[in-house]
């Protein structure tokens, strides 16, 4: 008789909650669309959308709570101790919490936007939840197979989401392009994994670390291909070219979601992979990361200058930010990793905020995409203009905002590990970035409004997201060590970031 494996179901709790949420939404839509009235209210399309978004937000909040509890508890729990594939540890629970929070904000951002674009279909939220569960699997994985499973579970719903506005050519193009190139990258990644398996005889990170032979060419090829696979997901130059096309074509709310969560998940996985599986290889990878980082910072910032479409501009800006983040990987120190985590959180809020403003301006099926259409926004929509200016300042890294603190921590880590030249490139290119970021505040505050049909009022969901993001950007910028809040006491984000990566350094 085979003994039942000793499973630790609580390890999967955050992921299970998200999965249950997506099922609930799918079934809920079916039930709701059959009914005429619910609790005395007429069932309209926007009513269904609101209920389903509410469901998604509820489940994400549960996940946030569950992962927060796990993080506070600390310690490492493995799902199946006999065959470790997933583990809940400070790192995965913290990143899961960040993912859940940003997915939650994305859902709140989408409610009115989907109605405006007349693509208010319930499966939207189910897809978001599915991809989120994939990301959470990926960051908790300690086995190559599990990483790949999570990666695909994350990617496929996002391919669909990118083409969600199916009546629009651009949206279709975006989805198809992303799918084609994404499949190609997945294939490269899988090939690399296969080679690594061939070298070490196992797929778990532990086996990889034990069986890795740095002199074996097969191992090196495998390693290189795995790096390429991830470099695609985090859009490092030269694996970045899909990014502007996809970000531009996808509905803005989807872009907001994918631009932050995919980056967080992929970077987190890369950190874990490097720290747990490829430990001895840091020296040879360091040069590769150095070059990738420098290239990405330079190309991302320079290309952003000439963009006339705000979503494309933000796409290049997100490429540039991936380059800054990569500096943390180059350092390979606990300081660098924790700076990356802090930066990712800062980036989440400021980028979600910036796309959130674009979403909040979308009107009757039209995205507000041209940079020129921001002219005079301070006159017509002063509140939106103010938060947009704040997000732009933060993305540019002006002191007092989260973006500055993030860059400061990353650059500080680079100084302390001796990567002075990378730091110089980063700082110089930050100066370049000020040009394109500040264009928008200049247009908003110093030009007369064009005859542009923006939406004239803001929905409560969008407003809440923007307020949360703006407050977070300010709070992280002003009190990086300790964010004072009235409700939850002091939030010590830097300390959390340190604790989450501390486990890789024997902390």
């Amino acid at each position, binding site marked *: 008789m085979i003994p039942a494996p000793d499973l630790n179901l609580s390890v999967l709790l955050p992921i299970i909650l998200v999965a249950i949420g997506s099922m609930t939404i799918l079934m809920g839509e079916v039930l709701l669309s059959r009914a005429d009235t619910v609790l005395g209210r007429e069932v309209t399309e926007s009513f269904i959308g609101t209920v389903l978004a509410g469901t998604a937000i509820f489940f994400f909040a549960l996940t946030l709570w569950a992962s927060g509890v796990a993080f506070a508890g600390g310690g490492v729990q493995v799902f199946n101790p006999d065959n470790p594939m997933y583990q809940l540890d400070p790192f995965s629970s913290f990143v899961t919490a960040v993912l859940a929070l940003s997915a939650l904000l994305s859902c709140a951002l989408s409610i009115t936007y989907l109605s405006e674009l007349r693509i208010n279909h319930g499966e939207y939220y189910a897809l978001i939840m599915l991809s989120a569960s994939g990301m959470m699997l990926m960051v908790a994985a300690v086995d190559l197979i599990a990483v790949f499973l999570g990666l695909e579970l994350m990617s496929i719903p996002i391919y669909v989401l990118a083409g969600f506005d199916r009546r629009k050519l651009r949206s279709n193009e975006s989805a198809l*392009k992303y799918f*084609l*190139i994404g499949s*190609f*990258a997945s294939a*490269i990644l899988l090939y690399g994994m296969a080679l690594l398996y061939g070298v070490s005889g196992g797929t778990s990170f532990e086996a990889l670390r034990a069986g890795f032979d740095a002199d074996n*060419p097969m191992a*090196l*090829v495998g*390693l*290189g*291909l795995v*790096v*390429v696979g991830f*470099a*695609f997901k985090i859009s490092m130059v*030269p*694996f970045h*070219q*899909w990014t*502007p*096309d996809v970000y531009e074509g996808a509905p803005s709310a989807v872009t907001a979601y994918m631009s932050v969560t995919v980056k967080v998940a992929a970077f987190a996985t890369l950190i874990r992979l490097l720290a747990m599986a490829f430990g001895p290889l840091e020296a*040879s990878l360091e*040069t*590769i990361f150095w070059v990738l980082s420098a290239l990405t910072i330079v*190309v991302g910032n*320079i*290309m952003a*200058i*000439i963009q006339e479409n705000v979503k494309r501009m933000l796409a290049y800006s997100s490429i540039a930010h991936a380059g800054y983040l990569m500096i943390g990987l180059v350092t390979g120190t606990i300081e660098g990793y924790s700076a990356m985590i802090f930066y990712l959180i800062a980036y989440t809020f400021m980028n979600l905020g910036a796309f959130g403003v674009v979403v909040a301006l979308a009107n009757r099926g039209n995205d507000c995409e041209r940079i020129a259409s921001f002219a005079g926004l301070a006159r017509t929509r*002063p*509140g939106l203009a*103010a938060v947009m200016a704040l997000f732009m300042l933060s993305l540019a890294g002006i002191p007092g905002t989260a973006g500055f603190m993030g860059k400061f921590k990353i650059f500080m880590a680079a100084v302390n590990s001796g990567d002075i030249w990378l730091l110089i490139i980063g700082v110089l290119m930050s100066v*370049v970035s000020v*040009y394109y970021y500040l264009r928008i505040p200049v247009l908003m505050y110093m030009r007369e409004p064009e005859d542009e049909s923006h939406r004239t009022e803001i929905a409560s969901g969008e407003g809440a997201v923007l307020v949360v993001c703006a407050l977070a950007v300010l709070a992280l910028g002003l*009190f990086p*060590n*300790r964010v004072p809040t009235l409700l939850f006491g002091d939030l010590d984000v830097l300390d959390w970031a340190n604790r989450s990566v501390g486990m890789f350094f024997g902390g």
Partner: protein
Amino acid sequence: MVDVGTESDLLRWIPLLPLLVAAYHGISIGVLRRPTVPRVAAIFSCAAVLLSFVLACIALRDLLALPPDSRMLVDDIYTWIGAGIGSRALSAEVSFQLDPLSAVMTLVVTFVGSMIHIYSIGYMEDDHRDDKGTQRFFCYLNLFTFSMLVLVLGDNLVLMFLGWEGVGLCSYLLIGFWYSDSWNAYCGSKAFIVNRIGDFGFLIGLFLLFNALSEIGHPAVSFAGIQAHFDGIVEMTIAVPAWMPFAPEWQLVNVIGLCFFLGACGKSAQIPLYVWLPDAMAGPTPVSALIHAATMVTAGVYMVCRLSFLYAAAPEASAVIAWTGAITALVAATIAITQNDIKKVLAYSTVSQLGYMFLAAGCGGYTAAIFHLGTHAFFKGLLFLAAGAVILAMHHEQDMRKMGGLWRRLRMTRWVFFAGVYAIAGFPPFSGFFSKDEILVAAWASHVPGHTWLYGIGMLTAGLTAFYMFRLWYLTFCGESRVPSDVLSHVKDPNGFVVNPLWVLAFFSVTAGLVGLPQIWGDLIGIEESNSLANFLKPVFAAGEPHHIAHSTEYWMAFWAVAIALSGTALAWLLYIKKPGVPDRIAATLSGLYRTLLNKYYIDELYDAVIVRPLVVFSDRVLYRIVDAGVIDGIGANGTAYGIRAVAANGLKYAQSGLAQNYIFFMIVGAVAIVGYLLR
């Protein structure tokens, strides 16, 4: 750290309340663009400052409950700037401290501040130039109060500098408050730029001090930290080239002290940087009262007193302070004699009184300086506000030659104005008498070279003060009315918001001197330790060893002070009431001297010709046209910008073809490069 002090979470709210209301005003007019009803906005602001005052009183009670030697409340909030490591580590905290010195300052700022806020409600209702004006005004006023409180409560030099710059900014904004008139905007810029020169000195002093402390292994910017390790740097010197005065070496603390004093000269309008203050009268009158008489301009005096341990070890720097103060007091008083604008007279009087305070501080009489600072805040605040009431009643007429005989019309204003004039002229038992007397005693008793001369200048200035203040009084309130008849019929006391704070300030102008009653008077009426202010402040200041003064000498000094004030008054009465034609004849006879004084010794013209104009020409011809427009913009900024743009537009753009197969091609190139590098 020597003395950590007692924790108190209360302190942070004293500056924070005005800041929160300022932020509210800023958001509602700047971001939301929905101004609050002016009256409501004004009441918020007043409430914030009044609450700060109440909190300051509670904090004072807590402070008094402690034993005299350890009276120190601290509120450490967070590390503001942490940089450097080891012996060069800089750690500037956002941390407030309340010791007797900052307690006095805080009470003065919040109390006089609240009165002036209330007054402003009435004063600004008269202003209809701009619908957002009132709220903007109160926003700046609250921001000013916040900055001033940070300045006096900050426990380190860096935080103090933040407040220092903050009050400078608010002063600039408020002088140019009616910016549509370009003269006001010019005056605001002048104040700001002149202050920058002083701020430069402040910063250099700060850097030198920090550097010296780092060299002995105790980097610190907090006052407690500096004081604890100060002994280690007293002996340090700076080597200078032989052609410089006092070569071959300067004592470091003297240099640091002079640098800080340059900052004080800017903020507190001392020679050579006093020129901005008279022009600052372009701002609304409550601003002149709050910022340019009662509080901000005294920041320099506060700083010198705060650093008393430094100046006690720097006798040469102290002597410079004393002499600068004395000369400023005299020069400003002589200018005040000839001015015809009621606010200008008060402005020069302020410069002169600030000179008194520096005279005291330079002579080691820190208590006297702070005492005069406090009484001056009351009576000069009162005089400005009362002058504002006159100006309101006169429909914004400020020329005293067009006033006269207002005694019969302004039946309430006249009494408070009278109290202010008596207080500043130095008649017992009004507050100005005691504080001025203490300064003169301090000057007499000090070790500063030529201290008897300093005493003489102080006495002369006291006589001039009485003269020009009574000249102002007679020209405005007494004699024949020279008011145009169409205005005269409307002249009456302004409304209650304006008048009531005046009574409060008048009360304190009369009585505030009693907190510093000299011991010789206390002995007469049988009070032990009558000078409660001095006793309260004593633990803060570095104690010097002044010359002993016999009691009889002190009585005589008081007598002569009253006598000279009386003679100044009598002269004013003689010239402006008894024989009104005489001043014009004197002016005609001594026309050269008169014109020099009327034109303020041509100092503005001198600065303009020697500094401003050459600088403007150099800046325009060389720095702007050649360096900035040519090199920096042309080659540097625009050159690189066009270059980078061209790279993006002509090069990189073509890589972004939009075709998936091209993208995959680049990916393969990248993958091959990475794998190739790994296999090398």
